[in-house]
């Protein structure tokens, strides 16, 4: 999205000022949340600004202030949000610790935690990042003249962070069709991802799928288990996205402090479910996450002792759902499984197979890839004869 100039980020349109002042939050003195010394006047604008900004709190909803600001009225939300995924990024922290071979994020070397806070943690959110401004990750700026918005804006908030995969997929900004749930003016991100999921329920979960707050297709589509032969045959065995999502984005490598270091690519892979305890499917869609064995070198973590402890192909829910996809549509007269089951060389590209991994990630350049992904390759799980 186009960024705002520095002055635009804090500008309130004079025509909107009455709307702000008449709103609940507009009746609270600026300094109650932002501190500063608005009574002190200077000789000119610059002096006045410097004096008024003495002790200014740029982000009143940041963790060190939030209980005194937002929490004054919204204590329950602030309280549960302390442990939320959005505010803490537990999953990413836990996976980093696990790959580094330490018991928890707190046990990581100080340089690594410092690097993480500097390079990665800006993607966490505060109340203000969703309800007043754009998130810090996209350089902030008022959503609408410092008006507080109850529902975060899809473009300025949600996909500002979740844009390159979820946003582009959902809105159909690549070659594929937009998500069937994207109905302009009708459905919003929060219709599935509600406030309880965003704010959390006060429990510290290990990662984003390790709870029931995350929506599932079946929450709404709860009467279709036997609605056709495909469903009758595969319901419960496969996540819905195995059949109903289009191709989606994967990344191979990210270097701490530098960002993604290899081009992303559009692909589609069905693999074994790496999270069977949290999501009860056998087969799911997987994406390669931006990690490699030297990802954290810049933070002083030259090698990941436990790199192969978990797959680099991760459980994913592409946001480009369609009823009819290349796997659910077959030509007239063709068997119903013709577009999906492996038959000779047909349809092999949809599955995470050991031999294709060896080609994509040769051992010379990616020594740990095959071992890391052994739990999710489908070779041994496919029906007899498919790979002959």
């Amino acid at each position, binding site marked *: 999205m186009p960024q705002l100039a*520095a002055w635009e980020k804090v500008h309130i349109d004079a025509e909107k000022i009455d709307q702000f002042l008449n709103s609940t939050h507009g009746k609270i003195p*600026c300094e109650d949340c932002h501190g500063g010394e608005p009574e002190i006047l200077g000789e000119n604008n610059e002096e006045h*600004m410097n004096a008024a900004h003495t002790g200014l709190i740029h982000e009143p909803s940041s963790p060190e202030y939030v209980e005194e600001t937002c929490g004054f009225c919204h204590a329950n939300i602030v309280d549960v949000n302390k442990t939320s995924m959005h505010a803490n990024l537990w999953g990413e922290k836990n996976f980093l610790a696990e790959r580094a071979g330490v018991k928890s994020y707190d046990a990581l070397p100080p340089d690594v935690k410092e690097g993480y806070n500097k390079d990665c943690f800006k993607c966490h959110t505060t109340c203000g990042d969703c309800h007043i401004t754009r998130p810090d990750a996209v350089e902030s700026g008022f959503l609408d003249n410092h008006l507080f918005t109850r529902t975060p804006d899809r473009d300025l908030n949600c996909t500002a962070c979740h844009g390159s995969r979820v946003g582009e997929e959902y809105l159909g900004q690549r070659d594929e069709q937009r998500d069937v749930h994207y109905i302009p003016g009708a459905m919003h991100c929060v219709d599935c991802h509600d406030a309880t999921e965003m704010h959390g329920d006060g429990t510290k979960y290990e990662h984003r799928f390790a709870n029931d707050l995350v929506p599932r297709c079946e929450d709404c589509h709860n009467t279709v288990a036997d609605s056709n032969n495909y469903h009758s045959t595969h319901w419960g065995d496969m996540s819905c996205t195995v059949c109903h999502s289009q191709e989606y984005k994967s990344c191979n490598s990210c270097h701490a402090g530098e960002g993604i270091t290899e081009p992303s690519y559009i692909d589609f892979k069905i693999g074994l479910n790496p999270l069977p305890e949290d999501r009860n499917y056998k087969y799911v869609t997987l994406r390669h996450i931006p990690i490699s064995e030297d990802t954290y070198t810049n933070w002083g973590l030259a090698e990941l002792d436990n790199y192969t402890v978990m797959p680099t192909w991760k459980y994913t829910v592409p946001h480009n759902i369609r009823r009819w996809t290349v796997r659910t549509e077959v030509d007239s007269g063709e068997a119903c499984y013709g577009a999906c089951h492996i038959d000779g060389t047909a349809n092999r590209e949809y599955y995470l197979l050991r031999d294709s991994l060896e080609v994509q990630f040769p051992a010379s350049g990616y020594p740990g890839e095959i071992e890391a992904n052994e739990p999710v390759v489908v070779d041994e799980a496919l029906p007899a004869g498919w790979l002959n």
Partner: protein
Amino acid sequence: MHTYRLSLKQALTTLVLLIGLLALFSCEEESDTIVDHEYDSSCLSCHTDSDALLALAEEETGGGESSGEG
């Protein structure tokens, strides 16, 4: 001369009413601190003035232009 005596029920009812009134006024008082706030316009005088903000931003950064696509 008549002597008025409150029954226990009447006394309790009166007490409850008094507590209710007290709570009502307490809430209103708390609400009024927000509603009746005299807005100090010094922050807004600058933050609604795009020319002043732009001038200050340029003085601070020597520019003030957006750095591009996010």
